């Protein structure tokens, strides 16, 4: 393992991307992910890699398309309004089966919203923010070290499945400083060659990157291939954390930063003798429906807590169905619910 560093979430994501062998990074400035951009601006050129401050988020994601198609590890990052602009490119990347990493340090919305932390882009990230039948792998880190681990993982999964992977974090995580231990850097030259990439048609037939099939039967086949890939990913890549769930009567379902806060809530509740556990999805797509379904059979309540008006709540209700009560507690506008306010909410559901 590499050295121990004290870094912000934004910097850890940037540093992890570099260590994962990211060769090209393209982005447009936006708060609250400035430190990510700045870390890349400073360090990528030093390593002889590409940093471009693009003219817009649309351009940045299109540059990612080009670099991904040329077969290198590549990343862009932004925050909510910028991610909306990237949706065109994300749909094309998904359609063309190009591996890349997209970071969304989510802020309050809709519209210009504000720069405070939020989880209000969950629908956009997990249900397909752009046009067409596609999915991204969506990873939701809850701590700074986990942000580093999931960023490294994102590059691996992207290459393994030829799929864009999104890191869905929020401004709180982006700004938070924690000690982290990052793995040693991967040498990009040591990564397996991508025989489908546009590296020059020397001694082989031309490689074509596209998301375009005029013939409906061919486009259907492209979609069937995508769906089959999504099934494989769903079978193999679901990740989640359970905390103190074994004897729980109530489970809190929460992801990302709120997932972490709810861990404290669980400890506070247990100190008062309330049997509460935490279910924290790590892959937001594919969503851990089955594990949550199993858990819902042993509890009477699954309380969803989010920094949104209730977006992941829909997935929780899909998983739980009528097996347990599914109340919701959330805040919007960039307000972070306090552990005390969540605990009070938990107490309402004690039977």
């Amino acid at each position, binding site marked *: 393992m590499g050295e121990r560093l004290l870094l912000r979430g934004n910097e850890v994501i940037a540093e992890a991307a570099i260590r994962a062998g990211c060769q090209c990074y393209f982005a447009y400035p936006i708060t609250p992910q400035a430190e990510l951009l700045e870390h890349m601006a400073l360090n990528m050129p030093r390593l002889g890699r590409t940093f471009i401050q693009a003219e817009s988020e649309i351009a940045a994601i299109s*540059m990612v398309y*080009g670099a991904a*198609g040329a077969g290198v590890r590549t990343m862009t990052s932004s925050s909510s309004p910028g991610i909306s602009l990237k949706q065109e*490119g994300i749909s094309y990347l998904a359609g063309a089966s190009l591996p890349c990493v997209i970071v969304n340090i989510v802020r309050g919305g809709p519209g210009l919203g504000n720069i405070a932390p939020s989880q209000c882009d969950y629908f956009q990230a997990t249900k397909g923010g752009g046009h067409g039948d596609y999915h991204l792998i969506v990873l939701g880190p809850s701590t700074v070290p986990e942000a580093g681990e999931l960023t490294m993982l994102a590059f691996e999964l992207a290459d393994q499945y030829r799929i864009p992977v999104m890191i869905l974090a929020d401004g709180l995580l982006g700004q938070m400083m924690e000690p982290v231990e990052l793995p040693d850097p991967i040498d990009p030259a040591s990564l397996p060659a991508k025989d489908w990439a*546009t590296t*020059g048609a020397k001694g082989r037939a031309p490689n074509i*990157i596209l998301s375009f099939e005029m013939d409906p039967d061919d486009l259907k086949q492209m979609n069937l291939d995508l769906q089959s890939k999504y099934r494989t990913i769903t079978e193999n890549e679901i990740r989640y954390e359970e905390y103190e769930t074994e004897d729980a009567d109530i489970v809190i379902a929460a992801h990302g930063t709120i997932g972490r806060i709810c861990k404290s809530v669980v400890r506070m509740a247990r100190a008062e003798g309330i049997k509460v556990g935490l279910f924290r999805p790590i892959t937001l797509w594919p969503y851990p429906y089955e594990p949550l379904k199993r858990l819902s059979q042993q509890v009477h309540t699954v309380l969803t807590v989010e920094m949104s008006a209730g977006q992941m709540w829909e997935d929780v209700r899909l998983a739980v169905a009528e097996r347990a009560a599914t109340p919701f507690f959330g805040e919007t506008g960039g307000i972070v619910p306090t552990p005390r306010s969540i605990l009070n909410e938990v107490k309402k559901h004690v039977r």
Partner: protein
Amino acid sequence: MSANLENMVKVFERPQSLTDARFTYCPGCHHGIITRIIGNVMDELGIVERTVGIAPVGCSVFSYLWYKADSQQVPHGRACAVATGIKRARPELIVFSYQGDGDFASIGTAESIHAANRGENITVIFVNNQIYGMTGGEMAPTTLVDQKTTTTPEGRDPRVAGYPIRFSEMIATLDAPAYVTRQALFDTKHIMETTKAVKKAFQYQVEGKGYSLVEILSTCPTNWRMSPVQSNTHVAETVTKVFPLGDLVDRG
């Protein structure tokens, strides 16, 4: 005479760098000539095995089928940004975009200008046919004043729709571009000159000189509702008055 004949035969020979796939263009459309020119230039420079072409959205959307080079088909207007990504990822590749006037000079305005301004070492082939060919003949940013299109049925009224945009002149005001030129194809002489310009543009990239843009005044007989011959005359006599031919920048 025989020398002339030889030249003419050469122009229309199928270049080695092109596949056998049939063009999807209408008869008399200049898109086909431009594709052949690019094929010939790739032959002459011997670069097809390290070239990546960018197919836009427009009548040339299928252009990835015609080159023996690798290709990327990209979102409408984003070709210059995608070209940037490819070239930065693999500078040893020769990267060119092929874009219509809607693609390059309307929806892709920001991407087109900023790639030029960064001096990306790429080649842009900009096909100005003053119309949206693929979608059925709507107004393009380059449509002439009073020109009838499906969205300017009474002719382009500059008070409503502005004037034809001289995009290459705008690019020519930037400090970075190595080569910016406007060419046409309405007779053999101009086809030869366009070929020379396209070759120079690729040559500059091979030599690492930076960004080059070859705008080519092109025809759309189908949507102009003219015969191919009338279309050529229209370019020679009318279009070149609004879009003058010649080099705008040459920093080679």
